[in-house]
């Protein structure tokens, strides 16, 4: 590959990894800080992507809207829509054990997937929504580097928000809930409310990632989300990087995305006739990698601050 192609690929790679980093930060609020299990990451991601797409595309008869609004309004809408979905599901499950939340998020992600596929008036069904404008395309142009810069900016924003939350008294309550729920309740805190806040905060970050993804690709359809593998990759990223550590979440996203992309180029060498087997083999490798990490280094590359080795 010549230098120009390599550079283009590098920009593409970093932008995608960056979007995963925002997802990993969102999951870190839910799992890393609070101990909540969300298996529906892809669902919140899809809600964000579709919301931003509908808000920012030109008016079309094929789907709801579009409303032709600016990029930042689309991202804000994406965060709000994911937050609303999170409030609904969180309100029911916050008083219950974390396993119930895990099962409920599978359900909500599945229903979101079915709805986006079948409700053509809303999303144009399997044909998807084309023509989503790149971020700030009117003022800055369509250079992929601009998109990368915007994504990196949002990583910084997300990191700053989550890190501030983690260091704040609010974040300490979340970690206390994770470690000892009864103790926090005895201290007079409303555990269910803190949990709900954390869940909604994390989900809105996932919605933000979805919005970025829609503007970066310019086209979204129900097939574009790899519903389960997307969720799974984010989990492996967070666990590998270090759950509870925001720098770990970002580092894990880039490291695992590099691994995932490397296995992709390796399997492409095998040729088209083995394409499906190669895809399955990649997923299998990541699945085994998760088990190895959980057994051998459960604290991840960058352990959570103030946590003794192997105490989780």
């Amino acid at each position, binding site marked *: 590959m010549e230098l120009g192609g390599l550079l283009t690929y590098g920009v593409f790679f970093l932008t995608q990894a960056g979007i995963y980093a925002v997802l990993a930060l969102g999951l870190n609020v839910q799992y890393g800080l609070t101990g909540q299990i969300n298996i529906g990451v892809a669902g919140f991601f899809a809600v964000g992507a579709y919301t931003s797409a509908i808000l920012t595309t030109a008016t079309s008869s094929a789907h709801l809207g579009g409303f032709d609004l600016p990029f930042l309004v689309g991202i804000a809408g994406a965060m709000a829509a994911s937050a609303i979905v999170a409030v609904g599901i969180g309100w029911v499950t916050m008083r219950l054990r974390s396993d119930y939340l895990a099962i409920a998020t599978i359900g909500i992600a599945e229903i979101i997937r079915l709805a986006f596929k*079948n409700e053509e008036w809303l999303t144009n069904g399997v044909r998807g929504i084309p023509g989503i404008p790149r971020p700030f395309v009117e003022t800055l142009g369509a250079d992929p580097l601009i998109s990368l810069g915007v994504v990196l900016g949002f990583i910084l924003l997300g990191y700053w928000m989550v890190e501030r939350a983690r260091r704040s008294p609010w974040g300490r309550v979340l970690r206390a809930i994770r470690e000892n729920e009864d103790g926090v309740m005895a201290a007079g805190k409303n555990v269910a409310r803190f949990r709900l806040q954390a869940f909604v905060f994390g989900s809105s970050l996932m919605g933000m990632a979805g919005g970025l993804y829609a503007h970066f690709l310019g086209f979204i359809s129900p097939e574009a989300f790899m519903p389960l593998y997307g969720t799974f990759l984010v989990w492996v990223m967070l666990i590998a990087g270090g759950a509870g550590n925001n720098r770990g979440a970002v580092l894990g996203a880039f490291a695992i995305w590099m691994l995932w992309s490397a296995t992709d180029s390796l399997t492409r060498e095998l040729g088209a006739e083995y394409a499906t087997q190669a895809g399955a083999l990649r997923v299998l490798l990541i699945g085994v990698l998760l088990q190895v990490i959980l057994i051998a280094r459960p604290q991840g590359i960058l352990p959570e601050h103030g946590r003794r080795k192997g105490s989780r």
Partner: protein
Amino acid sequence: MATDLLQLAIYGVVSGSILTLGAIGVSLIYGILRFAHFAHGDLMAVGAYFAFSLVAGLGFPLWASAPFAVAGTALVAVAIDQTVYRRLRRVSPIILLISSFGIAIALRSVVQLIWGPHNQVYASGIQLPWRVGDIVIKPDHVWIVLGAIVLVTALHLFLTRTKMGKAMRAMSDNMDLALVSGIPSERVIVVTWAVGGGMAAVAGIFLGMDTRLHPVMGWSLLLPVFAAAILGGIGRPYGAIAGGMVIGLAMEMSTVVIDPTYKPAVAFALMVLMLIVRPQGLFKGNP
């Protein structure tokens, strides 16, 4: 209209039988190990595909290949427990849940690697259905319901009449008391995985008979299976029967009023309703 409803009720009992067999496994595992086993749906798929190998590869009739598939899947379940879950048991149930999510994905990839990503069927061609008035009954449906009844009865006898079954119930009811009274917990755990895995294999085979085989067949059934287990009271295998039937019937009957693609949403709605009204389930579980 009345015959339509009766017809749907028959389909509901059939899918309820399949869900029951899956939900019993989930409930047993939850009762003993206190974690939601997310790889259970994919264990079902593994069982279904084991039977498919014997049917398509060696020309076995399906009923004869089922015992091998059950044994094979039970072995896979025990092997996963011994290599992975056993090392994580002391850490926390949440880590076990995440690990089982990874196992689910890995199992599905293995199925896809070995048997390919396409739809498969046990027997091609159309089964001649029986007609009772306007009601259509496929012979496969009768076998599925009868098979489920036999298995559930066998499980009941196992849990109430054998020493191992009683030990399992004791561990599920009160772990500490069971341990101090000298129950061999590791052996009970192995048997739990074998029973849960075996039941999952049968559920998978029945699902394959009822519809078709596909690598995601198990995962797509995971939500209704958990809904059934929660409805019945998670950790309570007898509740799983009631939960499975309610979810199965509700999912099929709902097609009268809503688009059949939203069947999983019905299971989800019932589960959410139960979580709001009575989180411990119909039969008091361990919420």
